[in-house]
């Protein structure tokens, strides 16, 4: 009667934590236990630890959802154009004549060694830093995830959603509902009573990413947003980037990892100008 019951309950719980709706999580857990029973083996023996299997299962579900009804990918109008953009701090040149044209429905990766000006370029695109020369043209509806201090350590995820939602003119309930739905796509179910300071580094970065896409912007600017992500979250993140792209957003990602670069539309490599 109690065959695999405890394992099944743990699996359902971990699936819910990974953003799977409760009903579906219970159904999947029930199916997994039933399959193990049919095979005449303990579920833990067949599938491994519930936590690891839940993570795999949740990721597969998200991948299936992403590819079940792929949107026709169309490159739209230009959302970001950089023409000979330069940046100097006193006598030191950080950026020397950067050019890029990014359209809606495209992903650009900015790569380069430490100190090559990647974050400076992203801040220029966001409008936080003024370029010393050249022209920056950018669409007004923008999402922005800075590398550090993009969230308040003393606020819960729901309070962040409300705050950012208020800027976009979204109501309180809608902001929280949209935020939680987007978090689910990154395999994260925010808890109501935990402030950002008590989240793990990777989960805090997921919050950072979710906040950048709360209003479905035309252009999303991300500065190494996957720091602290585990392997599954990292893959989920790139899946998410390509979902945004397929939904018609332009995405600019600062990265120092070279994985997945063959899938992006533009690679902008920066070098230290003084070298």
């Amino acid at each position, binding site marked *: 009667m109690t065959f695999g019951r405890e394992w099944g309950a743990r699996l359902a719980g971990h699936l819910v934590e990974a953003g799977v709706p409760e009903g579906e999580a219970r159904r999947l857990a029930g199916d997994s236990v039933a399959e193990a029973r049919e095979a005449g083996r303990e579920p833990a023996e067949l599938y491994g630890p519930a936590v690891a299997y839940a993570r795999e299962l949740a990721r597969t579900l998200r991948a299936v959802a992403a590819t079940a009804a792929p949107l026709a990918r169309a490159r739209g*109008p*230009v*959302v*970001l*154009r950089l023409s000979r953009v330069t940046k100097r701090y006193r006598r030191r040149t950080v950026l020397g004549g950067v050019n890029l044209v990014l359209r809606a429905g495209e992903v650009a990766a900015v790569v380069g060694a430490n100190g090559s000006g990647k974050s400076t370029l992203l801040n*220029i695109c*966001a*409008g*936080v*830093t*003024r370029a010393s020369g050249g022209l*920056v*043209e*950018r*669409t*007004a509806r*923008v*999402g*922005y995830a*800075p590398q*550090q*201090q*993009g*969230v*308040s350590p*003393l*606020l819960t995820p729901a*309070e962040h959603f*409300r*705050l*950012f939602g*208020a*800027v*976009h003119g979204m109501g*309180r309930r809608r902001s929280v509902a949209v935020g939680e739905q987007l978090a689910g796509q990154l395999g994260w179910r925010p808890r109501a009573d935990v*402030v950002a300071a008590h989240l793990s580094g990777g989960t805090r970065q997921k919050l950072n990413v979710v906040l950048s896409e709360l*209003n479905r*912007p035309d252009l999303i600017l991300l500065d190494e947003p996957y720091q602290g992500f585990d392997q599954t979250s990292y893959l989920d993140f790139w899946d998410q980037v390509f979902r945004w792209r397929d939904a018609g957003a332009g995405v600019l990602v600062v990265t120092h990892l070279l994985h997945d670069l063959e899938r992006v539309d533009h690679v902008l490599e920066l070098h230290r100008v003084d070298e």
Partner: protein
Amino acid sequence: MTLTIAAISLRETSRRRVALLFVFLLPLVFYLVRLDVHWQAIRFLAIGVGWAIATLSLFSHVGARRLGERLSVIGASPTSLFLGRQLALVGAGLALACAYFALVAATLDVPRLPAVALLLGTTVLVAAPLGALVSLVLPRELEGALALLSLMALQLLADPADAFAKALPMWSTRELAAYAIEPVGAGPLRQGLLHFAGTLVLCSLIAWGANRLRLRPVRLPEPAPEPATR
């Protein structure tokens, strides 16, 4: 949006429990130290409340700067961000002022008790923008806290009759404390309120302007449409 920012800032501030304990204790220490001389105790209490709220304001504004930048990029008005945070700080400050007004009412026999409420309320209203102003001039917490310490020490030590003392932001506390305790006419009340109004307007305007300059994102033009190709 301003009210949402105020509510969330208040929630954020309320989670700094140890800091809030010290915000509460600082004026109490000032008050108890000079309890033997009533007018001094009330004046010190007001300066303690002002110092505590100005420091809270300084740390609150410095801590929120990067988040404020991010919110400005996505379209938040720097004015709303500033006003929301100020509303939260003034709210917290007035709650503190109410608690200490109750303490004064319970422990001292003050001839003009409502003037003590006025004194504490005006101090809070000046302290919140003063802390914001310091946070914008000195954007690091340690430097800002030391600047406030110097300012408040000067405020306590300077001879109030000196013309120089009138340039200090909380000179009005002495006049209002004198009006509350001593058998004087409306002169100190008028002078205190005038000084308070001037300081409030000056600190608020400079802090608001500096905050706007700091947070306002660079205006970027929309991408020009590409020329049609044949």
